[in-house]
């Protein structure tokens, strides 16, 4: 019952948004959708439900982590959207509202999917739902960003479909499971044809890795995150990437069961380290603070991949990081959006003194930076610590060393840009009237930051248990 | 045996100008004209042999030797070819290499004779022709390799002989691709449209024509005759490859089919020349590389 609530209500509201005549009241649909989704998630926490549709849809531990993060993030952005859309009455928000609600429905299906085919369809729908939204600002740059996003994501999705077919073939032999249900595939385990599983993992890593934004498949991210409005950036960086990570994790489940774990783990750690390295390099001297956030997202996807690939205790850390990263990115993107609107520019050489002009958003942007780079007492510090612990505990000192190195470089690079934006005097910087801080636009990031801080200070036991059981699915502990 | 040799050599000597006649007739028909008689090429050769030759003062013995060596090279290659499914007069393992290099020798001396005139114009033509040939040669070799792999032999008589029937039954797609590639190479080597226009009189568009511009009288006859023999050569290979899939028949029937196939080949060349336009010079390498890749694909199909 609650499962249908979280999927069908946003979908129905998305359709309604297309037909809704009044532009001023349309954003309320976002709140309605967010509220229904949050209510459904709470119900699912309190009373878990059995699998739906012959086992195709079921909320297991991993899905619960991702969907809870998504739900919280969407709630925050829905509140933010009320203020944001009201201030931009010149833009038609029909496609925007409808697209966001469609995105929520699609992400929910990914979280619930236990069938690799349904998983793929839902990821495809997230791409299609978000591509028009990147074009919200209707200028040449956002068109370029939307085209690159659409092309690269579609490429990745097509390769992921090929990989899904490979997995189906791996189980198609005599006596095989002949199914794409994750449970059936994991059960068949060693009976799956190994060369097909290995080839499948490569294609699926490339495909879902493109959606995640792992290097070297991340070329669309700086453009898309840089040009998209803040809300969309938050949902992309904190929602869609997590959902893509979940898809990758499901594939990893099957690959592990087939006995190809060593190959898969090496690939994951390799790409993870590459992502962190690339992010570190490109963040230095970044001139556009929204593109900088995109590279931060690449870095954190690298961290997630490393956590999954290391195995053991690090996997629980990765799932913990899913939650932390999602919330922290929400803070960063929403406040960056506020700063962008207030100055009319995203360039670091033009924007300064944000903490003076925007007394809430500016310091929140700075606090978000501290959180996302893993500064204690914010919670990302703890999740990164668990992953690092896992690396050193397994004797992988090189991986651990590089991990710390890249984190440090990112901290320095990002810090330089953020401080330039936040500090200083805002006299002489370009101004846009009508975009001062309000509770609707600054409240949600504040709430998200507060939760990141709270999680860092005290992790509730049910959450810790949830991360561990999610990790257990993936072969961790 | 002697009779067979007699037939093959006389076919090689007498048939080529007829092929050129068929090509020109087909082109004329496409253009809506009646066209020259089929035997026109023979009349032209006879006329040229009766004429005197003019030699530029800047030329040396190379210029006089070029046409003769070219014709000799092509004739020798003709001896290596199995005409109509019979064994060739000269046949040994790896003779397809000799064939390719004899053709290259002929081309080399033609180009050398062109350079011997000392004119930069002929040099331009020689440069173009030789660069296209350098891309066409790998394609030609790849086609031969495909044939060799399909029939399991390394001599032309084996490749284009009786083993072809079995090869067609087993790997028809590969042989079809190789045939198409071979046809493209034939068009390139014989300076036909879409690579070069043999009827052009615009000097900047000439490739092969410009190399033979300075020859006159008997030398020009030798060159034209050699060119027609080269067309006959390639036609023989393509036709034999195409007909190889048919069930074996009596010798006379096979021979008649071969001759008919040659006529059809000439007609197809004529049609291609009438239907297509000349490619831009930068596109010719693309076409030839495409032919190479096609034959590589055919080889991959055979190797799997």
């Amino acid at each position, binding site marked *: 019952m609650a499962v249908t609530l979280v999927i069908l209500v946003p979908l129905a509201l998305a359709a309604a948004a297309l037909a809704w005549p009044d532009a001023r009241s349309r954003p309320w649909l976002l709140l309605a959708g967010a509220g229904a989704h949050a209510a459904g998630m709470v119900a699912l926490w309190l009373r878990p439900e059995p699998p739906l549709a012959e086992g195709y849809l079921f909320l297991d531990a991993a899905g619960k982590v991702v969907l809870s993060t998504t739900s919280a993030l969407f709630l925050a952005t829905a509140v933010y959207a009320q203020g944001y859309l009201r201030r931009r009455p010149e833009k038609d928000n029909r496609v925007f509202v409808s697209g966001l609600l469609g995105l929520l429905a699609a992400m929910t299906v990914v979280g619930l999917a236990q069938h690799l085919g349904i998983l793929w*369809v839902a990821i495809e729908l997230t791409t299609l739902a978000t591509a028009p939204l990147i074009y919200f600002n209707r200028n040449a740059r956002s068109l370029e960003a939307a085209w690159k996003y659409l092309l690269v994501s579609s490429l990745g999705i097509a390769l992921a479909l090929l990989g899904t077919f490979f997995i189906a073939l791996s189980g198609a032999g005599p006596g095989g499971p002949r199914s794409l249900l994750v449970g059936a595939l994991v059960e068949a385990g060693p009976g799956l044809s190994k060369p097909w599983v290995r080839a499948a993992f490569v294609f699926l890593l490339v495909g879902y890795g493109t959606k995640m934004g792992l290097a070297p498949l991340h070329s669309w991210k700086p453009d898309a995150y840089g040009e998209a409005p803040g809300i969309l950036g938050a949902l992309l960086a904190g929602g869609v990437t997590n959902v893509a990570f979940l898809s990758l994790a499901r594939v990893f489940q099957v690959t592990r069961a087939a006995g190809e774990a060593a190959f898969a783990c090496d690939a994951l750690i390799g790409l993870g380290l590459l992502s962190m390295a690339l992010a570190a390099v490109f963040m230095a001297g970044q001139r556009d603070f929204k593109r900088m956030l995109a590279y931060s997202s690449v870095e954190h996807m690298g961290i997630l991949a490393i956590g999954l690939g290391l195995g053991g205790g690090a996997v629980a850390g990765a799932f913990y990081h899913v939650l932390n990263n999602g919330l922290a990115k929400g803070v960063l993107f929403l406040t960056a959006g506020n700063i962008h609107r207030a100055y009319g520019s995203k360039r670091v050489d033009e924007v300064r003194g944000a903490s003076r002009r925007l007394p809430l958003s500016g310091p929140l942007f700075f606090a978000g930076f501290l959180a996302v780079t893993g500064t204690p007492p914010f919670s990302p510090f703890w999740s990164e610590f668990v992953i690092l612990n896992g690396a050193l505990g397994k004797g992988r000192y090189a991986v651990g060393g590089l991990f710390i190195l890249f984190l440090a470089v990112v901290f320095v690079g990002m810090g330089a840009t953020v401080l330039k934006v936040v500090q200083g005097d805002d006299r002489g910087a370009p101004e846009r009237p009508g975009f001062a801080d309000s509770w609707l636009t600054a409240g949600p990031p504040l709430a998200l930051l507060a939760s990141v801080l709270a999680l860092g200070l005290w992790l509730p036991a049910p959450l810790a248990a949830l991360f561990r059981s999610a990790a257990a699915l993936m072969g961790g502990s | 045996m002697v009779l067979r040799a007699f037939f093959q050599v006389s076919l090689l000597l007498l048939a080529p100008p007829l092929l050129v006649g068929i090509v020109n007739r087909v082109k004329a028909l496409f253009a809506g004209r009646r066209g020259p008689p089929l035997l026109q090429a023979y009349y032209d050769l006879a006329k040229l042999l009766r004429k005197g030759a003019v030699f530029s003062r800047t030329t040396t013995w190379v210029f006089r030797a070029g046409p003769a060596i070219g014709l000799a090279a092509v004739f020798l290659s003709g001896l290596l070819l199995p005409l109509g499914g019979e064994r060739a007069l000269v046949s040994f393992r790896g003779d397809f290499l000799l064939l390719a290099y004899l053709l290259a020798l002929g081309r080399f001396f033609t180009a050398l004779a062109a350079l011997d005139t000392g004119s930069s114009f002929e040099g331009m033509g020689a440069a173009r022709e030789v660069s296209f040939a350098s891309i066409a040669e790998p394609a030609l070799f790849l086609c031969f390799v495909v044939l060799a792999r399909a029939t399991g032999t390394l001599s032309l008589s084996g490749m284009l002989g009786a083993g072809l029937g079995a090869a067609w039954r087993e790997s028809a797609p590969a042989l079809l691709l190789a045939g198409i590639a071979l046809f493209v190479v034939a068009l390139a080597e014989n300076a036909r449209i879409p690579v070069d226009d043999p009827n052009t009189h615009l000097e900047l568009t000439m490739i092969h024509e410009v190399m033979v511009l300075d020859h006159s009288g008997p030398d020009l006859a030798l060159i034209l005759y050699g060119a027609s023999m080269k067309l006959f050569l390639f036609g023989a290979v393509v036709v034999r490859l195409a007909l190889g899939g048919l069930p074996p028949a009596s010798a006379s029937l096979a021979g008649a089919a071969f001759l008919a196939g040659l006529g059809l080949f000439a007609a197809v060349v004529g049609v291609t020349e009438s239907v297509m336009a000349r490619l831009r010079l930068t596109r010719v390498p*693309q076409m030839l*590389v495409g032919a190479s890749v096609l034959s590589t694909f055919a080889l991959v199909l055979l190797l799997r």
Partner: protein
Amino acid sequence: MTSWIDMTFVLVVVVNLFLLASSRLGAVIRAVALQGALLSALALLLASPAHAVGHVLLVAGGALVIKAFFIPWLMFRAIREAAIRREVEPIVGFVPSLLLGGAGIALAFAFSRGLPLPAPEMHTFLVPTALSTVWTGLLLVVSRKKAVTQALGFLVLENGVFIFGLLLTDFMPVMVEAGVLLDLLAAVFVMGIVIFHINREFASLDTDALASLKD
């Protein structure tokens, strides 16, 4: 019968090579349409008596209508709107593209040896053809500059995935096949709309114009 299927697979690969070498947009669109028709024929030829007739006809008919008619029609409209006839010199030139395509075909055949088919009666050309078509599509998307050719490259990639999907028609539900066609349709629709906007915004479909965002 087997030789017809062989021929069709070979033709699909030959069309791939043509796509890599051609610069005339009209010819490329027609070649992609031809490939779609070939795929539809493959869906019919590869169907064994065990499959539901209705399902087979649906897949083959859907592939024909969408890949061979509808999408090429959309593309022709796009180039008519933008008044372009030729691809500009791509990032990877035509000859290197051809060579890479040829190398891809050889590699696809080599890799397919390591991927044993579950049921031996499945056709041996299928996996290499599918993989080489995917590779061709990837090459086209990555190396071409006109947005229309990039979209066509994506279509070719989807064709490759579709060929592969034909292997699974006996035990995979209709959903998977429909998923491929749906994916195609939706993506191309959206791409078509974006192309329309690109043309309007930049007055050209040359993605060189889409190069202002960089680090």
